[in-house]
């Protein structure tokens, strides 16, 4: 009966029935849970509806024929259905999770990043510069992360049983050949570059991407700011010097300049240290970043120049008058890169860098003059096939030309080498779901000097174990050429090699992050030689090897204690290697078993002040006691240091800053120097290697001048 009635109407009033189509159905996620409030509509029309509390929707449309129905909801991929409107009934729409979301798993094995919006950030941009022990050096802030070793007298990054040369630094993806100011024994160096030009820092302690090579242990990636926020002038007046910065913006371009001058003479006059300075440390540096938008692309040019010099006499157990040392260094680094989004989700990146380093060192009667010219060129393409599949590939070339002139009253030598390395890499990012992601890469390198081709596969994998936790695994092969100190004597070698195996667990929720990482690093092909100090007559080969394994723990909490933000890092390291002139496998003196860092920041609102605290502990480091049999068989006492700082906001744009390193004046011994020959009792005399000064004090005044009268340099401290 019913059917015939409808048929009746259909026959007589066909227009009424067919002019208004009802579109109806249900929207769910992939687990079948209804999605409430999804937007369902016919594209280009005004017709649509929101899904109700049961995920159901229904609306009438006057549209006919083939149309596209769009179903969208926040944090899901939009779904489009193109069909005849009359067939859009009883629809069962399943929306896929948008993998471009905070909830998606990220590959976190091995890397720490600092910056905005990064899902694996453990440090915030401010931390780089407000960490008490760091004294404004970004390397100092990274030394509070697990995986690093406390080598206080050096100042560089020592990662997971690797020496400082095993970490490479890149600015905007382009290598920095001479990242640290040269210095001498027992005077810690600092990173050359001012943190205020960078807005993103990724520090990888292993298992990093195939895009990066020539680093056995670690890479540090620094990105310069794409677009400065405003025009401003920064003035810094410090107890050790001064600085001036200025940023100027135009319609499509901007320029930031930064100059600083440091002279330790007044400080050392007031607080003399253990060295006898003829010419206390003095450095002048300038940096500039220019950015220009070209169409959809961005061109960035970065340049930095610095010159530093000092002269001193250092105690020496073999020379009663001490060793005279003087150093004069000029360093120029420039880096240009261009990136642009092309059609069809292609991105192109091209960049290059040039480094000029000129170092003159005088040790007693001998003069050494080094000149390094290095360049790096890179071309990279990226294709985003979808949110779930991305491909990244490119090629690069490293060129180094190194020359050394060695002069003594009765001896002179010229040394040098040319090193060309060509490399290509390819890497795919595959996101299977919000829970599972995979990164697969391979890198090939050809060294012209060694006539050697190496292939390094890399893989990492991440799986989300819970709402706030994930597990990552990483594997990789890494090759690096021996350092300049070896290459200047021989080219009859091969690249040194490591393999990394990493497992990482990360939990993060409510401003708390917990990370634990276990790793094993296998060294092979390490360079060995037969003398304490290599020279032209030394015999070199690649017969060294070793391992490093351990556990890194990181905990950060910004929630539990009001106005207090703190983090704790602990590293356990077990490592031995045979390299250089080691007679046996041993733990090198730059590696220690336990490292602990505690960093805290307390904001006192009534005082408009931030108080910073940091504690560093490193267990004893190995040394060879010549009075007993064995090699690197003894350990020093542990290292302890507490640093404090206080930043006081005088007004919105004026900051007064105080800091003190090793506030409690712990007596730290970094190692021992033994006499070359025993005394009449057959005993080798020794001397403690103490820091030049136990404590360091710093006072600074920082003033920012900008139109909005709000910006300040708290992020530069």
């Amino acid at each position: 009966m019913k059917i015939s009635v409808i048929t009746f109407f259909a026959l007589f009033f066909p227009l009424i029935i067919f002019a208004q189509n009802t579109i109806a159905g249900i929207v769910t996620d992939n687990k079948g849970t209804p999605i409430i409030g999804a937007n369902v509509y016919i594209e280009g029309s005004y017709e649509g509806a929101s899904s109700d509390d049961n995920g159901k929707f229904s609306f009438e449309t006057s549209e006919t024929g083939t149309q596209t129905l769009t179903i969208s909801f926040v944090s899901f991929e939009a779904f489009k259905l193109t069909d005849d409107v009359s067939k859009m009934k009883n629809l069962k729409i399943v929306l896929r999770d948008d993998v471009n979301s905070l909830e998606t798993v990220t590959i976190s094995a091995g890397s720490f990043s600092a910056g905005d919006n990064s899902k694996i950030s453990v440090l915030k941009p401010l931390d780089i510069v407000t960490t008490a022990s760091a004294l404004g050096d970004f390397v100092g802030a990274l030394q509070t992360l697990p995986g690093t070793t406390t080598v206080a007298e050096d100042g560089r990054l020592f990662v997971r049983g690797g020496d400082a040369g095993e970490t490479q630094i890149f600015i905007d993806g382009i290598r920095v050949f001479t990242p640290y100011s040269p210095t001498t024994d027992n005077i810690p160096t600092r990173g050359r570059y001012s943190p205020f030009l960078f807005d993103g820092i990724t520090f990888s302690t292993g298992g990093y991407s195939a895009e990066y090579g020539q680093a056995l242990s670690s890479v540090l990636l620094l990105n310069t700011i794409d677009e400065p926020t405003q025009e401003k002038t920064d003035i810094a007046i410090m107890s050790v010097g001064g600085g001036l910065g200025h940023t100027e913006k135009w319609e499509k371009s901007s320029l930031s300049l930064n100059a600083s001058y440091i002279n330790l003479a007044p400080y050392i006059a007031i607080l003399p240290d253990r060295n006898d300075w003829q010419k206390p440390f003095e450095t002048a540096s300038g940096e500039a970043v220019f950015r220009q938008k070209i169409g959809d692309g961005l061109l960035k040019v970065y340049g930095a120049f610095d010159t530093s010099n000092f002269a001193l006499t250092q105690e020496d157990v073999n020379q009663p008058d001490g060793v005279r040392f003087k150093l004069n260094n000029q360093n120029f680094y420039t880096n240009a890169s261009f990136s642009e989004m092309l059609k069809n989700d292609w991105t192109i990146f091209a960049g290059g860098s040039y480094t000029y380093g000129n170092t003159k060192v005088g040790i007693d009667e001998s003069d050494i003059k080094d000149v390094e010219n290095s360049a790096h060129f890179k071309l990279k393409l990226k294709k985003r096939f979808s949110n779930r599949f991305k491909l990244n590939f490119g090629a690069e070339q490293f060129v180094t030309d190194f020359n050394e002139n060695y002069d003594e009253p009765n001896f002179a030598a010229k040394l040098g080498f040319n090193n060309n390395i060509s490399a290509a890499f390819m890497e795919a990012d595959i996101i299977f779901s919000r829970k599972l992601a995979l990164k697969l890469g391979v890198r090939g390198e050809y060294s012209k000097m060694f006539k050697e081709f190496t292939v390094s596969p890399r893989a990492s994998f991440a799986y989300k174990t819970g709402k706030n936790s994930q597990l990552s695994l990483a594997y990789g092969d890494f090759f690096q050429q021996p350092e300049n100190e070896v290459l200047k004597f021989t080219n009859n070698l091969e690249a040194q090699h490591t393999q990394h195996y990493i497992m990482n667990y990360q939990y993060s929720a409510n401003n708390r992050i917990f990370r634990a990482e276990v790793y094993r690093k296998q060294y092979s092909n390490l360079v060995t030689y037969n003398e304490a100090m290599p020279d032209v007559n030394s015999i070199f080969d690649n017969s060294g090897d070793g391992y490093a394994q351990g556990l890194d723990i990181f905990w950060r909490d910004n929630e539990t204690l009001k106005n207090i933000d703190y983090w704790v890092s602990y590293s356990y390291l077990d490592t031995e290697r045979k390299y250089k002139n080691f007679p046996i496998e041993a733990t090198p003196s730059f590696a220690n078993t336990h490292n602990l860092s505690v960093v805290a920041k307390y904001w006192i609102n009534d005082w408009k002040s931030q108080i910073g605290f940091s504690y560093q502990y490193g267990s004893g480091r190995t040394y060879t006691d010549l009075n007993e049999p064995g090699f690197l068989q003894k350990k020093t006492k542990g290292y302890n240091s507490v640093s404090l700082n206080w930043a006081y906001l005088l007004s919105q744009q004026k900051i007064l800053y105080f800091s003190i390193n090793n506030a409690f004046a712990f007596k730290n011994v970094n190692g021992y120097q033994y006499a070359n020959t025993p005394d009449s009792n057959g005993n080798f005399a020794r001397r403690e290697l103490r820091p030049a000064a136990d404590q360091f004090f710093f006072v600074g005044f920082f003033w920012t001048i900008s139109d909005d009268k709000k910006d300040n340099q708290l992020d530069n401290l």
Partner: protein
Amino acid sequence: MQNVITYLTLFFTALVMQAQTETTGTANATPTKYQQGMNKAFQLWQEDKSWDAANVFERIATAEPDNWLPPYYVAQINVINSFTEKDPAKLKAQLDKAQNFINDATAISKDNPDLLVLQAQLYTAWIVFDGQQYGMTYSAKASELYNKALALAPDNPRIILAKAEWDMGGAKYFGQSIEPYCKDIQRAIDLFATFKPVGEFYPTYGEERAKQIQAESCK
């Protein structure tokens, strides 16, 4: 620093007060589909169904690819609702969505002071959510956007109000005089009296808020 920024920016939640007037083209005979749609959206919004309103604006946005107002309102609803969102994943999804719609609207209407202010409010939502992480960079960006918006529309009371309110927060915190900003607020109130939106459905909010601030801070 977190607290400074949080303080600086909390007042933005007050922008939730949308005094959107229903300026329908009643003089015209039949409202167009566009007018019907926009009216329906504003009605839903006033009934506290802001997400349904956002859905309607989103639909209109696809049908009116040359009109910046529908994407502007989609973005505005997402931004306003973010101020009270505590779940970081949801917050990010909403603000990403808002950013996409601001980008769409900006592509249609360049150098639009209302869009610049909305972009500044989006940054503010990030700052309110996590001042320590986003405060430094985003507060400078927001300041710059307010300056730019005011330069483009020096006599628009809503822009004067937004910038004055932003600056006032900082001045109060450091115990500086808020007198100059009170003058700006007064100027905004004067200008609101004669303010005529450029066209139908253009943003008109702000007068109530200006009076409220004056009553609370400038007496």
